[in-house]
């Protein structure tokens, strides 16, 4: 853990915002209406770290990842990777830098080309980045990487539909790894898999991380899996990070009222464990008409007048974690 904190930050996200234009008002004289999906989030990833981004649907966790991958352009904010700014990169430079950040999608069938054999898909990134010259080397490299994700050479000649869901996700992982990326972004990589297969893929991810020292941004709604896999966790709610810190500290003693109720809502497969029956009331408000002040105040058990007027900033607390809540700033226990 000590060495990790010594490492430098390789990806710094600063004040990242994203608003989407609503298509409903097409008339030129009509006022354009936007929906704010991300409201200025800040975080950074250190080399070798595994950051878990958690939250319920619509909280902006996938949008964040897609902006880093340049699938969406941010409305505001910067993303710094080492010394280069990722937003606004073009041409060869973009290709060169982006090669070091790879992405794994939730649905492996959708991410693979049904008409290309597995092996060809795995080495296709090499063709794109290094040309066609050494195709036999590429094949050899693809086979060895296929074996390192726990599959056999015969699978390389197969097509995606001949594989099981877990095997497909391994292929997607192999393809992402073939360029030796520094950062791997996994967007719900196990949600589509069966319970018994999830552990296989997660153990594989942990092995890859150990062997290659890869930096991981892991997006999931499965908090137990994030606790297991990631050493740092950021909790998001309606486009904001509400709590961010070391996973063990955060899960053992959540401070933000949203983190608390989120963790409390996750069922534990042990009937002997009895917990307080604190269930969050209400639902996530619409992003089209977000609450004023702190976005969580209408559902918050400890909300006060101030919370509906001002938005709390993400502030560092005594134990090194960050949280955005007025009650915490004053040291009141929530």
């Amino acid at each position: 853990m000590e060495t990790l904190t010594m490492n430098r930050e390789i990806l710094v996200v600063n004040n990242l915002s994203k608003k989407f234009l609503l298509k409903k008002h097409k008339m030129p004289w009509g006022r354009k209406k936007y929906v704010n999906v991300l409201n200025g989030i800040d975080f950074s990833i250190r080399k070798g770290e595994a950051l878990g981004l958690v939250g319920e649907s619509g909280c902006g966790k996938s949008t964040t990842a897609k902006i880093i991958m340049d699938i969406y352009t941010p409305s505001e904010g910067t993303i710094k990777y080492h010394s280069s700014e990722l937003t606004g990169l073009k041409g060869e430079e973009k290709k060169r830098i982006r090669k070091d950040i790879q992405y794994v999608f939730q649905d492996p069938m959708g991410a693979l080309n049904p008409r290309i054999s597995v092996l060809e898909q795995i080495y296709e990134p090499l063709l794109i980045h290094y040309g066609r010259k050494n195709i036999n080397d590429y094949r050899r490299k693809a086979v060895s990487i296929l074996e390192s994700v726990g599959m056999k050479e015969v699978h390389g000649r197969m097509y995606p539909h001949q594989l099981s869901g877990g095997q497909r996700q391994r292929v997607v992982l192999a393809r992402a790894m073939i360029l030796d990326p520094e950062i791997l972004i996994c967007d719900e990589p196990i949600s589509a898999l069966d319970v018994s297969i999830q552990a296989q893929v997660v153990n594989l991810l942990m092995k890859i991380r150990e062997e290659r020292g890869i930096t991981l941004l892991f997006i999931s709604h499965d908090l137990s899996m994030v606790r297991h896999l990631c050493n740092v966790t950021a909790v998001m709610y309606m486009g904001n990070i509400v709590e961010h810190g070391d996973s063990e500290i955060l899960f053992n003693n959540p401070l933000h009222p949203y983190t608390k109720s989120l963790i409390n809502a996750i069922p534990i497969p042990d009937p002997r464990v009895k917990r307080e029956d604190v269930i969050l009331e209400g639902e996530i408000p619409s992003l089209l008409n977000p609450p004023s002040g702190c976005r969580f105040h209408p559902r918050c058990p400890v909300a006060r007048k101030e919370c509906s007027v001002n938005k709390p900033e993400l502030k560092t607390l005594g134990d090194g974690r960050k949280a955005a809540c007025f009650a915490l700033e004053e040291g009141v226990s929530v």
Partner: protein
Amino acid sequence: MNNINPLLKIKDLYVGFNGSHEGKPVVRGVDLEVRPGEIMGLVGESGSGKSVTCYSIVRLLGERGWTEGEVIFEDRDVLECSENEIVSIRGKEIAMIFQDAQSSLNPVQTVGRQLMEAITLRKDIKNKNVGDIRKEAVALLREVGIPDPERRMGEFPHQLSGGQNQRVMIAIMLSGNPKLLIADEPTTALDVTIQAQILRLLKKIRKERNMAIILVTHDLGVVAETCDRAAVMYGGRVMEYGPVDEVLVKPRHPYTFGLLSSKPRIDIKVESLYTIEGVVPSPVNLPEGCPFCERCMNVRDNCRDNRPSATSEGMRHFFCFNPVEEGLVWKH
């Protein structure tokens, strides 16, 4: 507990599909009992046969499937009932809710109209007028925790959130006041905080109306927090069943053990995850013996060809020749 007459008794049930899976059954000899007022968890991965078992209880497979065995509800065999009889059972005696509530509802009718339709279909309404039915519908929506029910009556399913649509489905289900509810993954598509609300609602309904519930899920956590008893299914068969306190605390079947040890916990730090190697088998090439034999850590020579019979330990039963030791914990 054992002396209580079961509400539903499934005996040696086989279910298959016509024209797929090479005619091989996907449910292969399931025995289960559901007692009045209990919540019974049916756990398994996709393809384990848990949903198909539920569909055959209310005969929803229709022409597509064939069934063998007995499904005794109170004193009738549902599988032998005439079409008229089964219509009088569905909704009134046994009701069902599904994973995707929005596609269970009609998108072009208001939720109020759909709820009122359910009430008129299921109640003796000769002496009632529309106003009374409407009042009853509003009361049901209030009972399932929908805020501002009068206004919601006039809204369409797409205007409601996933959790609220599931509440509407529960209200429709309640209108028939059934004795047994089959809930097929009712919270899988919902966020965890909403899942907790819906599970709490189901527990409240069970308590107030003494309704038995079969809760189909793949989440052992949901089972632990909601169910009284649970049956773990794999490859079309029940692997282990009994009180949740025993099945989830001291699993004896290697599959139950594997499932429990392959999932990390939110409340404690787990060093490493157990992996069940291999993949879920297709119903077409399941072995004669235990369906789990190919992936089992305790497999023996006789597992492949012989079907293990039930071993009973108190209230719990498991089907395994070589069970895991009681109280075994996955060591990392």
